[in-house]
């Protein structure tokens, strides 16, 4: 062997150029660090706070950052985008590591300790990896470029994207050519491990003049270095700033259930201490919490939230991507009013809080939380529609949205006994169960099934009060908490241990929101409870050849990750035909976040779009598990004249219809 296997040094690079390299890299590093520091400082985060936070949460942070960041848990949902992201991400990571190793070996270990680490087999492995990394990066970037140019999907592509993608492609190609040129000059047998550069090297003529080659190498090298640092400096101003911020975001994301909104104040505490001088909601961008500001900065403008949002699909003027982007644009100064600066009043009320945007966002931003903060402020400034005002009024006066007399709830006592401490479970009928004619039927059916299966349950009748979920999502935190305190008192009075709810919204609220106010009970939705009864053979259903499609309620599915019980029930008697949008990609019925109670301006209605998707399956029945979905779908089928094409039934009614005895 002529020469030992070592990595070639920067032999042909004269000192001047090396000095340029060190000066630029040093200033670029300082620049980027300063930019980072400035960003955080503007958001009011101190270094000690960051260190403190890391010290407390490092374990959860690492696992969260690994699963969402390193494995791109979310981008992976879309195959093309997932592969693309993984190629770019890992390509960059590998190149970053290999460049760092070169720097370590040549710039630190060799001059100071006179040995290099890039030798022997390790070096050969290193070169295979480095070449593969470069290849992955180029492939990923070409996919990104193609995706934008071919306009396969609507992407909000800005000039920024093209600069970065092409810059990075040029950089990687330069790198390969540099390597290839070096191989062409001193062809060593082991160079074949740099498999791409090896084959590339043959494009240089074999009899090339050595001096010309070295000259070409030097110039190419300088261009390469300058391209690299230009990109580094450009990075903070570009979309790719998400590389830094989104990792931070993914890592520091508060660890709370998805169905839990932030709590701006504790009513009980405020009443006790008399301290009520806090602001609720965000009038201006500046009033948003620091994590929300970081959220906005991490947004990559990818548009996933926008493509999933039912309010966008129905043609309203709400667009979660724009909300986040508009915040991002002014986040440092913050002197812009949320409404109308970030979103219009109509847009603020158009959100159904379906959390499709939250599900989609690859960097764990919660776009809908911005809408909630805007609503909270609108409520504090009394900027609410007549219907919304009526809704709140009814809640205060009658503890239900209808304004019906609270004692009317006792009508349900015909179908189920009053709860007392001898009962094992509480069946919570909800306001729809008590007042909506269709909801009442469902409550009646569920209670019939519970009785049949011998479940020891009871109901609260007129002691039940609205749980407040809609008030909270409409931004009226005070009315929400008033109801929470009243209901928790009732649960404590009866020492309730387990609650079955009729409505996924009640379910989510008791499960995820009430614990913060002191409730500790087991909560199940009736789909889960009934599925268990069917599974245990306590309710026997017969097989039919019906084709049934299923609508996942947002607050059971996406928000609480429960998809299987409803599917189990449908499959127990019929043939399940999934809609195109199902499970976590399911589309909202349009009722959530208060939208059942007021109207916003939009071109289409969300429920009609969803109904069409159900009709497209050609199923004869549509199974639902939420009284609001039921009402919305029913309404849509009436106005679309689809009543004789598809029958809308609650999951409990489907069991009841197909009982064996």
């Amino acid at each position, binding site marked *: 062997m002529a020469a030992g296997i070592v990595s070639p040094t920067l032999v042909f690079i004269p000192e001047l150029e090396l000095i340029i390299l060190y000066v630029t890299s040093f200033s670029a590093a300082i620049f980027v660090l300063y930019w980072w520091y400035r960003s955080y400082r503007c958001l009011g985060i101190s270094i000690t706070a960051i260190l403190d936070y890391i010290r407390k949460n490092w374990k959860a942070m690492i696992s969260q950052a690994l699963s969402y960041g390193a494995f791109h848990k979310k981008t992976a949902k879309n195959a093309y985008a997932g592969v693309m992201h993984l190629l770019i991400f890992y390509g960059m990571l590998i190149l970053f590591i290999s460049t760092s190793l070169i720097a370590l070996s040549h710039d630190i270990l060799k001059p100071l300790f006179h040995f290099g680490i890039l030798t022997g087999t390790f070096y050969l492995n290193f070169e295979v990896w480095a070449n593969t990394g470069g290849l992955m990066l180029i492939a990923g970037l070409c996919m990104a470029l193609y995706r934008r140019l071919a306009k396969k999907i609507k992407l909000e592509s800005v000039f920024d994207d093209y600069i970065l993608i092409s810059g990075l492609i040029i950089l990687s190609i330069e790198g390969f050519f540099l390597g290839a040129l070096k191989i062409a000059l001193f062809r060593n047998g082991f160079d074949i491990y740099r498999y791409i550069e090896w084959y590339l090297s043959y494009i240089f003529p074999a009899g090339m003049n050595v001096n010309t080659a070295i000259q070409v190498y030097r110039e190419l090298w300088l261009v390469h270095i300058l391209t690299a640092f230009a990109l580094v400096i450009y990075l903070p101003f570009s979309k790719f700033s998400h590389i830094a911020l989104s990792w931070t975001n993914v890592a520091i994301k508060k660890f709370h259930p998805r169905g839990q909104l932030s709590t701006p104040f504790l009513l009980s505490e405020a009443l006790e201490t008399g301290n*009520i001088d806090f602001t609720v909601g965000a009038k201006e961008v500046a009033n948003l919490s620091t994590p929300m500001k970081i959220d906005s900065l991490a947004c990559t403008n990818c548009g996933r939230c926008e493509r999933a949002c039912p309010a966008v699909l129905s043609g309203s003027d709400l667009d979660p991507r724009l909300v986040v982007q508009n915040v991002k644009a002014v986040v440092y100064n913050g002197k812009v009013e949320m409404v109308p600066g970030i979103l219009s009043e109509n847009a603020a009320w158009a959100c159904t809080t379906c959390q499709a945007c939250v599900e989609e966002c690859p960097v764990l931003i919660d776009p809908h939380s911005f809408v909630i903060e805007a609503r909270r402020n609108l409520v504090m400034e009394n900027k609410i529609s007549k219907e919304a005002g009526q809704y709140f009024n009814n809640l205060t006066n009658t503890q239900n949205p209808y*304004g019906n007399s609270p004692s009317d709830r006792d009508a349900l006592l015909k179908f189920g006994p009053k709860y007392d401490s001898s009962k094992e479970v509480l069946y919570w009928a909800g306001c729809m169960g008590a007042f909506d004619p269709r909801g009442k039927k469902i409550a009646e059916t569920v209670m019939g099934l519970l009785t049949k299966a011998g479940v020891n349950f009871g109901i609260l009748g007129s002691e039940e009060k609205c749980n407040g979920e809609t008030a909270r999502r409409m931004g009226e935190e*005070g*009315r929400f908490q008033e109801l929470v305190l009243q209901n928790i008192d009732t649960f404590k009075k009866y020492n309730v241990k387990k609650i079955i709810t009729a409505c996924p919204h009640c379910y989510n609220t008791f499960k995820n929101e009430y614990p913060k106010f002191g409730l500790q009970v087991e909560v199940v939705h009736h789909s889960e409870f009934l599925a268990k009864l069917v599974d245990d053979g306590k309710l026997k259903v017969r097989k039919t050849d019906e084709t049934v499609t299923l609508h996942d309620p947002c607050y059971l599915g996406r928000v609480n990750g429960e998809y299987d019980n409803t599917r189990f029930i449908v499959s127990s008697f019929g043939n399940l035909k999934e809609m195109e949008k199902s499970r976590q990609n399911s589309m909202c019925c349009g009722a959530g976040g208060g939208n059942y109670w007021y109207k916003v301006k939009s071109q289409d209605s969300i429920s009609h779009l969803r109904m069409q998707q159900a009709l497209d399956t050609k199923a004869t029945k549509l199974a639902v598990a939420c009284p609001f979905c039921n009402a919305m779908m029913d309404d849509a089928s009436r106005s679309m004249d689809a009543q004789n094409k598809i029958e809308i039934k609650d999951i409990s009614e489907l069991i009841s219809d197909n009982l064996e005895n």
Partner: protein
Amino acid sequence: MIYLPYNIIVLIKQILDIDQMKTNQSTGEPITEGVPMRIENLSKNAIEAAVRIKEKYGGKLTGIIFGGEQSSSAMKEAYAIGVDEGIVIKGYKGKNPSVTARVLSEKIKTLPYDMVILGNQSADTYTGLLPGKLSSLLNVPLLGNAVSIEPGEKEVKVTRVLEDHNVILKGNFPVIISVSQEINEPRLPAVLQIIKAGKREIKMETASVQDSSSIKILSDRAPKSERKKEVYEEPEKAIPVLTRVIKEAML
């Protein structure tokens, strides 16, 4: 003399929440026990109208409730909507608008004011007598049944609704204005605002006029209404029945 910014007095009535009141099925007697109190809807319109004038032209808004100890909750809500200073006069026994008018006019006389704004009647008794009685006791003109109020430097322009046409009235300050429900959509204060408002002081006073009621209530029984309570689920079946019933009623 230029009256801007204005001193406005708004008169607020607190009543039983009659929407939540039930009647005894057999005797028709109203069951008032346990029924919560609320601000009468037209009073809310009056407060809203006054607050809007204040927001536009500036000035001071004094709210007066002739009620009882429990009326402070209504005043808190009025504060949350925008009333600056609240006076609760205890001793209200209801039923007699003459007494109410005398109590209120005594109080109003002690305060500076350019406008007194109140609802034109209230949903518990529907006498609609108070605005007129106040006008005569205070000797101040009444611009009644207003659907819009446009105050100027010296006079105020009010649009009054009549059965089939509107009348525009002008009056020199001070005036009494009674508002009708169409004047505005009262805002609804958030719970937190009501709590915040609850920390402000409310002046509690006792009525200076004794109730010498000359009005007797002969009966307050609910009229019997026989409901058949027929429910039709399919429109096809319901429509012929409905048309028949409506036709019969029109004969």
